[in-house]
């Protein structure tokens, strides 16, 4: 994952626990502020990244993956900000028949991410999950 040749990339690895999600938000706030984003767009990115990290933390807790980490990797160019969020918090095996599934914070989080960024992809495996989100400048 580490990339030393990308001149506009920022990488941060944090423990996959609730108290460090704010650190990831703070880091992406700084990165997003370097883009030609409006104030609202910067806030959108902060919230979307916070939600992605929160989902990782919740799965780490559910899978009892102590010691797991989240790696945040961002890349800026003149048109867009791309953020990759990798975790090693285990598989995400959901139960779609669960009661009140639509009201689970995790589902609200996924909804928020979809609404806040322009593109989002999620690749999950037994070991963990990779979320990629892209936000274009000048969309709003």
């Amino acid at each position: 994952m580490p990339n030393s040749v990308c001149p506009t990339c920022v990488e941060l690895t944090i423990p996959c626990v609730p108290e460090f999600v704010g650190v990831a938000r703070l880091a992406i706030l700084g990165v997003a502020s370097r883009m030609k984003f409006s104030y609202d767009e910067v806030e959108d990115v902060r919230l979307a990244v916070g939600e992605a990290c929160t989902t990782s933390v919740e799965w780490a807790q559910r899978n009892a993956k102590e010691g797991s980490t989240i790696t945040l990797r961002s890349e800026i160019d003149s048109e867009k900000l791309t953020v990759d969020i990798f975790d090693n918090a285990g598989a995400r095996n959901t139960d779609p028949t669960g009661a009140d599934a639509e009201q689970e914070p995790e589902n609200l989080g996924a909804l928020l991410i979809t609404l806040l960024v322009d593109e989002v992809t999620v690749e999950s495996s037994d070991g963990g999950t990779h979320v990629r989100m892209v936000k274009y400048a000048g969309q709003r």
Partner: protein
Amino acid sequence: MNFKMDMRTLDHGLPIIDLEGEVDVYTAPQLKQQVISVLESGAKELIVDLTKVDYLDSTALGVLIGGLKRMREADGNVTLVCPSPRIKRVFEITGLDKIFDIYNTQEDAQEAIGKENI
């Protein structure tokens, strides 16, 4: 972590939770405990004041939705005070502004609750 929570009860028994700072996956469990204690006290109405909140995520929304659901089951309500456009936007884009009663000031929220209970 920048988070503060104060619980108080007005003279006529209306509980108010004042929140400040960031309500997220780390701090929302404290809010959940407070909401549960209000529910267990038998209160029918609750005001949650988000005036000084500068970040609120889906975990916090989940706590508020859970509280609202249980309050409404008992013919009560959770009323929000949220003058900040940035925080209000989170409710708007998720459609939750249609579910919660949201006011700009505590006075407006108290007045609305008073009228409903007449």
